[in-house]
């Protein structure tokens, strides 16, 4: 469905995406595009959705170059990042126009509008202007326009930004349902947990480079190769004595009322830690992972890459 062959994107002197190669197979499913802000996620999605042509290499979607290509654009839907919608227009009228621009007309258009608005839960409220809609409602309308023509490939750029937890869960459920019905979904985010809740297939981008590709488990295994810092707060002497007995220990330092240990394969050591605490042999008041955030993940992988 998607083939990138050393595709790159430049914005003048700035490199938005380094030469990148990957493939996504046909068929439904969700693929997460993960990376911190500025990693090149939007650049990649703009290449795939045909907004921008590659500066180098080749991008193929459904076997063709997507830039200004109606044959490709009629099979994909895009929900761009941000909260931008045309001012002064009513939701349902705008949706009608987007449907017509997708090649729908007559009863088919009516049916597509009804289905899209029902899917996103906007049947009752779509007659309002965008200015009167809440952020969550506007996000639903943006999703509705992408679903109108029942695309085989749905691209969403940071769709969870600014949504409240309930709206986020609703959107996740909707995306899962669409994927089960055979839609291939590519969704970008800079939050690992968001992507992990949605899919087990991840593309990791950092500073315009594709660092890793695989399932959540594979990505986590990559992480396991690197020491993770944990702060154990409690009786430092006892904690330190326990820590030195652990085979995963890579480094340790004692701070005021706490021990900071650096361990490999944290998922092996954590069950033993849990057991020791349960048995009452380890006086822990708090356990804090210090570097399990996404930036640390990318730093590890970048070192690997180098």
């Amino acid at each position, binding site marked *: 469905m998607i083939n990138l062959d050393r595709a790159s994107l430049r*914005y003048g002197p700035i490199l938005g995406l380094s030469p990148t190669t990957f493939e996504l197979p046909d068929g439904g499913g969700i693929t997460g595009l993960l990376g911190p802000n500025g990693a090149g996620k939007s650049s990649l999605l*703009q290449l795939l959705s*045909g*907004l921008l042509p590659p*500066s180098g290499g080749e991008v193929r979607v459904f076997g063709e170059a997507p830039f200004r290509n109606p044959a490709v654009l*009629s099979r994909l839907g895009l929900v*761009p990042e941000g909260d931008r919608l045309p001012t002064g227009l009513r939701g349902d*009228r705008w949706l*009608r126009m987007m449907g017509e*621009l997708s090649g729908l007309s007559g009863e088919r258009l009516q049916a597509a509008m009804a289905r899209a608005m029902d899917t996103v839960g906007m049947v009752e409220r779509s007659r309002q202007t965008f200015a009167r809609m809440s952020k969550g409602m506007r996000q639903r309308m943006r999703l509705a326009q992408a679903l109108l023509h029942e695309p085989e490939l749905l691209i969403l750029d940071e769709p969870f930004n600014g949504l409240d937890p309930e709206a986020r869960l609703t959107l996740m459920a909707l995306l899962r349902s669409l994927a089960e019905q055979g839609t291939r979904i590519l969704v970008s985010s800079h939050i690992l947990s968001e992507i992990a809740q949605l899919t087990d297939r991840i593309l990791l981008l950092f500073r315009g480079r594709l660092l890793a590709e695989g399932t959540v488990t594979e990505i986590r295994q990559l992480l396991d190769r690197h020491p993770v810092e944990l702060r154990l707060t409690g009786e430092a002497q006892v904690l330190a004595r326990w820590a030195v007995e652990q085979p995963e220990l890579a480094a340790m330092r004692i701070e005021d009322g706490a021990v900071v240990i650096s361990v490999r394969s944290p998922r092996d050591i954590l069950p033993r830690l849990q057991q020791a605490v349960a048995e009452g042999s380890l006086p822990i008041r708090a356990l804090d992972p210090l570097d399990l955030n996404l930036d640390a993940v990318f730093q590890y992988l970048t070192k690997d890459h180098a």
Partner: protein
Amino acid sequence: MIAAPSPLATIRATALGYVPRILQGRGWVLAGLVVFPVGLSLIIFTLIRLKGGDASPAEAVKVFHEVLVKMMLPIMALVAAPAGIREDLEQRTLPLLLVRPAPAWALPLGKGLPWFAWGALWLVIGVLGLQLLGGDPGQLPGRIVAMVGAWWGELALMTLVGLLFKRGTLWGALYFFLWEPLVRILPPFLQRLTFTHYIESLAGSRAAEVQVSQLLAQEQVSTHPALAILALLAFGTLCWALAGWKLQSTPIGLAGSEAEG
């Protein structure tokens, strides 16, 4: 798979989709640009006549040439064009249109048509209003055609300039308010590069209005009315086509900026 819409279907869908925009603030400003000077002229002339004064019908011609043609028409183009496709570029809503299978080149015209129709309606009303002041009824069709033709060309030009330059409104203002007024002193050939020339060829010459201070004016050239309207329509159509070509060929991303494609 759904077939991509035809260019005509694209223009129709975009024009109808954006029709509500002309009935909002900017649309009424556009209407006011015609209604205000014409209405004011009507009130002043009526008051003069009520007081037994002499209000010459030639004054209506003066209001037409000096106010509507030279000031209001360019300002209308400067006000309306940024609400066309340029608005989507600036609000970053253009990607939502560009990821559709519809031909991108048809979008500027589709979005500009409601503004053209709305502006043309008020210009016709304005010209008809001025006719109430008097003047030769035989020149009325020429004035209407001149205003509508020039509006078509000026709106298209400003739409194109808005896609070509970041500060399109500034360049447009410079053209309308620096270049066009030079028409009186321009050599004959250069007069043909102004809207004023074609409007005067259609609506009647301003020659009768030339003042002593303008005695240094070059000889005024004239174009046959049929050729003049053809020139205005052709120029406008060319500008719409170039605006469409610019949009079709320019990569425009989510940030509203171009990548090095």
